[in-house]
């Protein structure tokens, strides 16, 4: 199935958008953390897990999703939320901990919630997988054609919640798609040391669930596999599992010394940058000129800059606001 120019350009633009956001966040993150890195300092404190390098996965999957399709994500959520269509301003403001942020500063980078986009994430590995099952259950109960998608890493595929969730989705035949982003590592632990099978696609058999492994640097491959799984789910035919093999271009989190990486590995993967791959393909097909690519990049840079400016100009929440929102009904 050949994709239209329009679709490919949308995918391209989305990947550029994510990359631009992430690389700018990285720059901002180091503000106030130099010359001595202090995780608590600067305008964006705390851990920071960026998505650069994995853009094809978020873009390829979310291209099939509507705003009302629930998505659960992880500690590395920016790419998914951007691909889902978030307002970058409110997202950036949250990362800055500002009152205007998606969560009024209470959530932060790892805990971004956008109810309009039915998006949630969190810092506990595997924690979001059951939520997607529950969302899919709600969809099925209401007889809707929405689909719930859960993104998580190959490391998360070894935690109990993965197993329980996939089994539940399968026995209840829920409209859910599980997307494993196999970026080869869980922090420093390589997949070979954590996972008894080479491909998590082999784990579909444990739930009688269609499962496939795809090249996660190839956005078209991801797009096609995801399209099939999502349409299947929309038709009420049950859940699927997709593993997309990709790579973290910036390490696990900012500050990761990456001593554990084999020499040359990252460089090798960078040669398969998903954005460059699609860009080259588009250029070969005559669907994108260098000038157009430049224009896209500039537009994205401007969007991110606008989000940054919004975040910087926004106020911090009042300290006492820490005490609200524990309960909807305080007593």
């Amino acid at each position, binding site marked *: 199935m050949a994709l239209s120019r329009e679709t490919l350009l949308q995918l391209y633009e989305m990947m550029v958008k994510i990359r631009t956001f992430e690389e700018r966040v990285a720059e901002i993150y180091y503000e106030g953390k130099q010359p001595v890195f202090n995780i608590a300092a600067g305008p964006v404190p705390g851990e920071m897990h960026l998505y650069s390098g994995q853009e094809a996965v978020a873009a390829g999957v979310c291209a099939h999703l509507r705003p009302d399709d629930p998505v659960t994500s992880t500690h590395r959520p920016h790419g998914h939320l951007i691909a889902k269509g978030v307002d970058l301003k409110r997202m950036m403001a949250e990362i800055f901990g500002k009152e205007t942020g998606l969560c009024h500063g209470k959530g932060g980078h790892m805990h971004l919630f956008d109810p309009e986009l039915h998006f949630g994430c969190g810092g506990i590995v595997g*924690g979001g997988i059951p939520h997607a099952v529950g969302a*899919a259950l*709600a969809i099925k109960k209401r007889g809707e054609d929405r689909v719930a998608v859960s993104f998580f890493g190959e490391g998360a595929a070894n935690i109990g919640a993965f197993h329980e969730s996939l089994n539940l989705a399968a026995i209840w035949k829920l409209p859910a798609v599980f997307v494993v982003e196999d970026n080869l590592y869980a922090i420093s632990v390589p997949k070979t040391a954590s996972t008894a099978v080479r491909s998590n696609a082999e784990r579909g058999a444990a739930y009688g669930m269609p499962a496939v492994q795809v090249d996660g640097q190839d956005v078209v491959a991801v797009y096609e596999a995801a399209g099939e799984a999502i349409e299947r789910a929309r038709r009420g035919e049950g859940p699927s599992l997709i593993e997309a093999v990709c790579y973290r271009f910036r390490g696990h989190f900012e500050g990761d010394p990456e001593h554990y990486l084999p020499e040359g590995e990252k460089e090798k993967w960078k040669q398969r940058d998903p954005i460059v791959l699609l860009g080259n393909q588009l250029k070969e097909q005559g669907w994108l000129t260098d000038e157009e690519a430049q224009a896209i990049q500039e537009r994205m840079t401007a969007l991110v800059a606008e989000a940054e400016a919004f975040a910087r100009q926004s106020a911090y929440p009042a300290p006492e606001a820490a005490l609200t929102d524990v309960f909807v009904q305080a007593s």
Partner: protein
Amino acid sequence: MAERLLTTARAIAEAIAQEMERDERVFVMGEDIGAYGGIFGATQGLLEKFGPERVMDTPISEMGFIGAAVGAATEGMRPIAELMFVDFFGVAMDQIFNHMAKIHYMSGGNVKVPMVLMTAIGGGYSDAAQHSQCLYGLFAHTPGIKVVIPSTPYDAKGLMIQAIRDDDPVMYFFHKGIMGLGWMYPNPRATGPVPEEPYTIPFGQADIKREGTDLTILTVSLMVHRSLDAAEQLAEEGISAEVIDLRTLVPLDKETIIESVKKTHRVLVVDEDYKSFGMSGELIAIIAEEALDYLDAPPKRLAVPDVPIPYSRPLEEFVLPSVERIVQTARDLVAE
């Protein structure tokens, strides 16, 4: 017209049924809650009434289905999940503790998690270390969870309806010994008057189950009954015990507690949970903070003495607060 009598189990099942009729977003999930009716009867008859779509038996996957309840709740449903015994919480604690309890806060108030997690607590029938615990103290320590612990059929129904209608995650703890089950050790107060029409009991309102003047007994759940029995015996000795059923630990009705202590000047906490770092400590701390000058004697507590619940009957009887020990401790307290 004679009052209608129900067991606590039936009162809970009726509350759920009435809410399921009223609100189609409400559904129930858990192990053996369908055809079996729930191991402790809290869902008896619901499958027949509402069918398997709304009364769902689950696999043994507590992390999965409690997490699914969280996900369904954030999508606007109002799930009731049953954790068969509270003792099993450990396989699902992450979903309870880091997600159910925190999503509303982490989202800055933008996402709601309106769900009820109900679970059976308590010992006294030799089910030993992994099937006899209370543990409400752990959950009361967790910001973001409302903690509800009924002691009577009447309270059980009203608090359950309140829990289902509440927009926050609620943990609802029913003691096996108050359910009125035919096969459990008998408790006459496990059957009592329950109005047929739906009603609610607001959270955060302790109930003075018996008024008194010489000492205040603070307690919940089955220990309310033991304390009432003890109060009766104490009355015969001329000691007037006030028995306060806290009913909810979060929110906690500090006012009723403090007022009672200001009246009686003596306090005994009776708790079937582990003694240290739990409910009994918190209650005494609050009193020390807010009514220190009113105390005529050091506060006392009776609780499980920081040991797992043993199997053998004499051992278990030794560690659970009994009517006799409550009486004895109250006597000592008043004598001080």
